[in-house]
């Protein structure tokens, strides 16, 4: 990809976030007037424990270039342990995706609390930059043609 | 006297077709131990001997497992539809087993009665089928039990019969003649095709046995069925399909997808009611469809004895086994009296 194409490309990023921490973190980023790229589409779910891996596949199917999954820090889950369960699942899921040859640079996980508006903004900014560098997720789009 | 072609010349001819932009498909090893009918990119991939029956069937090239029937675009209250022109690129199916070619001829009836399914008929018209007679068979084969044999010509445009170093070529239709025009050599040899598998059941006998709709056998003999679609999807004559919409908020397509009467969702109503709720009923439906419903409606048994159902069944529950069991229960005279 040429430099001009890279700058013209605006990645689509889907962020699945939990209702109690990261969503509020994003909200805080907003109320604090912290700027972060508008490439991210936030989808709010009750808990990271509810974030079905099929949602991640679905996002790629629908043309996402990057997927973000984020929720409460360990120990802070609104439902006590949803994020612990989720963490186990992601650990295995990442390995499965790796075996499939799916680029793990396209999926990012984070713990972002309701107080971490700044972390949210920084995290999104950083991964958006990364997504720009990576370019469109052509490999999965080809599968979906 | 006969017309013959050497294997080498046949391969050269196949390469010529491919070079001319014709879609050519035939049996090939796609990986170790897996022979399938697949689109060929070169004649080197083509198998002309050493296989019994590919794991799939040639219906794939007339009635693909997924086919877009139209596209839709959603624009507020409005919808735009775009018809998908049925594929009519010339295609040649080469080295198809007689049980597969016969199946295509049998399927013509259902796709043509009443409304014509152009997606099927267009492909069919644009295709030339070069059949390859069988010199061996395995324990699953039962073509002779349903009136087909190792060199049955039904549905074929050309029949190739193995002859040392090459094939005897019998052009059966105008299409076939055009395809092989000037490519065969006259010879005084004619191919001798060994007999096919022993006849194990007769369609009439089966037809009679199927009159007993509530035969308890459907419960016991099919108990091991796992309710998958492996038999239907690899069957050359199974033609049931589903129609689905796939797309996003802006548009998408409507598609015809293979479906199987063995899958539990096949007849399930939205209300949850399912007319065929247990596996025995679904097995019965499949057998009834092949040996009673279709023959009654279209005059031909919807089975060519290829044995793919048994070959592909996770628990070796082929239709032949069921038929044999079904008929074993019958008094011998029934069916023969016809």
């Amino acid at each position, binding site marked *: 990809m040429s430099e001009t194409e890279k700058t013209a490309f605006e990645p689509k990023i889907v962020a699945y976030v939990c209702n109690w921490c990261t969503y509020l973190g994003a909200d805080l980023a907003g109320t604090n007037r912290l700027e972060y790229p508008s490439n991210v589409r936030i989808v709010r779910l009750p808990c990271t424990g509810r974030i079905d891996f099929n949602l991640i596949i679905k996002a790629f199917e629908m043309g996402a270039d990057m997927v973000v999954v984020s929720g409460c820090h360990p120990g802070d889950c609104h439902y006590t342990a949803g994020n612990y369960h989720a963490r186990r699942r992601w650990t*295995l899921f990442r390995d499965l995706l790796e075996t499939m040859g799916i680029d793990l640079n396209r999926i990012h996980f984070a713990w972002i609390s309701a107080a971490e508006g700044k972390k949210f903004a920084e995290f999104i900014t950083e991964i958006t930059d990364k997504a720009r560098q990576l370019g469109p997720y052509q490999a999965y789009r080809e599968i979906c043609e | 006297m006969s017309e013959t072609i050497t294997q080498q010349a046949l391969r050269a001819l196949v390469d010529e077709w491919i070079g001319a932009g014709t879609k050519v498909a035939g049996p090939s090893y796609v990986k170790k131990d897996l022979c399938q009918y697949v689109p060929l990119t070169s004649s080197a991939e083509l198998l002309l001997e050493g296989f019994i029956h590919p794991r799939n069937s040639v219906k794939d090239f007339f009635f693909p497992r997924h086919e877009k029937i139209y596209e839709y675009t959603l624009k507020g209250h409005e919808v735009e539809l775009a018809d998908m022109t049925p594929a009519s690129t010339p295609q040649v199916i080469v080295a198809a087993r007689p049980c597969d070619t016969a199946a295509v001829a049998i399927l013509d009836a259902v796709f043509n009665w009443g409304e014509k399914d152009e997606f099927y008929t267009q492909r069919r018209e644009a295709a030339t089928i070069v059949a390859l007679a069988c010199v061996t068979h395995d324990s699953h084969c039962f073509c002779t039990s349903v009136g087909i044999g190792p060199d049955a010509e039904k549905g074929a445009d050309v029949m190739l019969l193995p002859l040392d170093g090459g094939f005897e070529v019998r052009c059966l239709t105008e299409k076939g003649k055009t395809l092989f025009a000037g490519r065969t050599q006259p010879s005084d040899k004619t191919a001798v095709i060994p007999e096919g598998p022993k006849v194990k059941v007769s369609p009439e006998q089966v037809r009679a046995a199927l009159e007993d709709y509530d035969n308890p056998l459907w419960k016991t003999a099919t108990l091991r069925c796992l309710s998958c679609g492996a038999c239907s999807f690899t069957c050359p004559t199974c033609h049931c399909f589903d129609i689905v919409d796939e797309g996003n908020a802006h548009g998408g397509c409507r598609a015809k997808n293979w479906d199987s009467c063995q899958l539990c969702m096949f007849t399930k109503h939205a209300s949850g009611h399912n007319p065929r709720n247990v596996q025995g009923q679904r097995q019965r439906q499949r057998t009834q469809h092949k040996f009673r419903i279709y023959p009654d409606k279209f005059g031909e048994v919807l089975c060519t004895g290829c044995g793919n159902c048994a070959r592909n069944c996770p628990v070796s529950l082929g239709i032949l086994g069921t038929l044999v069991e079904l008929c074993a229960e019958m008094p011998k005279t029934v069916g023969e009296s016809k």
Partner: protein
Amino acid sequence: MIEEIRQTCRTLLEAGTVNVVIAYGQSNPDGPVHPIFVTKPDDVEKIVWNKQCFANLTTYLTRKEVKSLGKAAILVKGCDARSLVVLVQESQVERSDVHVIGLACEGVGEPELAGKCRVCEVHMPVGVDVTIGSTEAAAPEGQNRYALVDEFMKKSPEERMAFWKQEFERCVRCYACRGVCPLCYCNQCIVDKNRPVVIDTSATLKGNFAWNITRAFHLAGRCVSCGECTRVCPAGIDLRMLNASLAQSAEKHFNYRAGMDPETPPVIGTYNAEDKENFIR
């Protein structure tokens, strides 16, 4: 050994201990071996035990048509016994409801031993009610049970993706993998649900990727590598690779192997606050 198997089954049926024996049989002597359901004591003569007894019969324990026959005895090989452990762990089967007849197994497949048997560690089934036969066969020393995956992972991600594209291209969505799997016991599979449609039912690459990823992951930490899905796939898709990769992952990260010990809680159903999380920010 076969006489002992038949005698055991006959005794169980005659005593009324069980109503049905889920076993291996053959419709004719040269025909393939397939599952049979023996309900009459005299029919135990139909039971066979040989190198063609591939099927994992535990898949029938959760099927309504079979359950309706009453209390069952079942023949299991060492690998099959593992899936029974998972079924019991997941409350799908009440262990006391099934009479489990373990068969000492030196591996199935002829002339070539099935891949799973070459690295088998459970020639003698565990957790059964009775074991028939004995074998000295043991796991090869110093074996790497994930050698296949390790070898595959040497390929670049692009090569791996290309491989799966080629494999899934052939998937016709017959769901034989689901049908044969003892652990695919859901009343309604997610692919059969349509509100909303989670996985496209079309046998396109898109739908096939989604389906196969989903099935593999729904078996994460559960698959006991009985290899049935791979054996029955009419399109010859190398499904065991996905399952083995997840099994390796469960062992590597959580020191867990499915179906080895009924007392260890399932890896996905539990957690440890100290689980590693080096990939999470």
